[in-house]
């Protein structure tokens, strides 16, 4: 069964077309990474899939239902790039993660025992249960990112959609993140993520899709990191032995430092 099916999608902002004729299908239990340089349109692609950006032309099906008529949003867990702009009103880790239950519970019911258990389970999964009563503003960037994945996992989704989950995240958090995603995948979950670099997530990825200038430039096994693109701790055995394909050369960003 196809969980996400994008057919001939075109999307534009204010008259400028960002995505041209993109087709992409994600099957059940698949882990797909969308890669690309900044401005390639990779974030726009998943934001359109999630309904945050209107579809220009083409069609998107979620769980074999046209997105316009799709109502089972509890089946989708979204992990944004960053915690929404902190405004100064404190919120605890537990309160943020509890938001993840609303899709399942609806807005008219008060949280019950099942909600509490799900919040604790999700925080256990990302290794932050001991921080449940701490204000999120006291967490490190990586821990905040893990809070966001816990929020998505608390809703017990079938599909996780992550926007650059590991950008600017410390190594320990990246490992915890990868482990939580791995368990989600082992439990039958489908994952679609946008990434700039894969890092410790790489072993999880079944298929990589490279977006370049609003089109799909490459689709297949996840590419080896290019020389200048490798992690500092990456096992860098044969950086130039493998001849990179043209597609990979094109998308490997050269502006990594400026990116974040």
């Amino acid at each position, binding site marked *: 069964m196809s969980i996400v099916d994008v057919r001939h999608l075109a999307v534009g902002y204010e008259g400028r077309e960002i995505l041209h004729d993109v087709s992409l299908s994600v099957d059940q239990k698949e882990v797909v990474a969308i890669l690309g340089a900044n401005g390639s349109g990779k974030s726009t692609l998943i934001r359109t899939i*999630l*309904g*945050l950006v209107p579809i220009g032309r083409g069609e998107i099906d979620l769980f074999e239902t046209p997105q316009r008529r799709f*109502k*089972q*949003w*509890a089946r*989708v867990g*979204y992990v*944004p*790039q*960053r*915690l*929404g*702009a*902190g*405004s*100064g*009103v*404190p*919120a*605890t880790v*537990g*309160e*943020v993660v*509890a*938001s*993840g*239950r*609303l*899709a399942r519970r609806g*807005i008219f019911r*008060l*949280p019950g025992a099942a909600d509490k258990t799900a919040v604790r389970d999700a925080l256990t999964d990302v290794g932050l249960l001991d921080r449940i*009563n*701490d*204000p999120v*503003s*006291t*967490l*490190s*960037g990586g821990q*905040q990112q893990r809070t966001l994945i816990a*929020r998505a996992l608390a*809703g017990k989704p079938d599909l996780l959609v992550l926007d650059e989950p590991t950008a600017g995240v410390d190594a320990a958090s990246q490992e915890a993140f990868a482990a939580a995603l791995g368990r989600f995948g082992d439990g039958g979950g489908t994952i679609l993520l946008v990434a700039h670099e894969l890092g410790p997530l790489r072993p999880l990825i079944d298929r990589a899709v490279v977006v370049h200038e609003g089109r799909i430039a490459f689709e297949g096994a996840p590419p080896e990191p290019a020389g200048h693109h490798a992690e500092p701790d990456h096992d860098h055995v044969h950086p130039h032995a493998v001849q990179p394909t043209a597609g990979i050369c094109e998308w490997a960003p050269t502006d990594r430092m400026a990116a974040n």
Partner: protein
Amino acid sequence: MDLFQYDFMMRALAGALIIGLAAPSLGIYLVQRRLSLIGDGIGHVALTGVGVGLLLNQSPVLAAVIVSAAGAIGVELIRERGRTSGDLALALLFYGGIAGGVVLVSLSDDASSNSLIQYLFGSLITTSPTDIALIAVLGALVLIAMLAFRPALFAVCNDEEYARVSGLPVRTLNLLMAVTTAVTVTIAMRTVGLLLVSALMVIPVAAAQQVTRGFRSTMVAAMLIGVGAAGAGVVFSAEVDTPPGATTVILALAIFVAIAVGGATWRMLRRRSHPPREVEPPDVVLQEA
């Protein structure tokens, strides 16, 4: 406390306590989404409603509720759509609101500057039993809506895009908040006045969050501070003969300063007594993507 033998003082106190409880329960959401000053803007628009009410010889409070609710919905629709242009549109709406109010009030039969002052700075003592009944009913509705929908409103204010992807009725919740803001502004205009209305929504929240760690605890603390400041403001103003609205706001500010100073001192003392804390909470700076 002989003053409270008088019915008008009891009504003034009841009105103040209701507002003191309801205003921060809404204000916390406005502060969370960085709309601390929206109450002020809606207050400007409500003045046009007062003018319409006086001109048509209808209840100014009712007319103000309707006009400011329409204004608040307009603001929300502009906010939802735009970015920079929204800011300018808001300014136009607010200045139009206050200018319209001043012109309409001056055209009405009750064209004394006194009637304008009454709405701008509050006039609890002249509150009629009908007004109090209206304030009580609307205040209770605001309170119930803000408490019952807390998880959903928190989600929308904390991360609107996430709420959207969760399938929450984000637009309906935003409009609920807009209308609630208008209602709160209008019922508070008798207590603190349109020019000080935002203070009761924002200052108790600002005071509470100096020492709280979570959203729910901030909400509870802000409501307690709001009720305390409003109640003490009425009593104090009656004793020393100052305007109750401004007195309430000064008291709320004093509570803010006391909590801020007290909280900072406590943190400093605690740090001194337990210096080797293992993990110092970092000041996390979230940069925009």
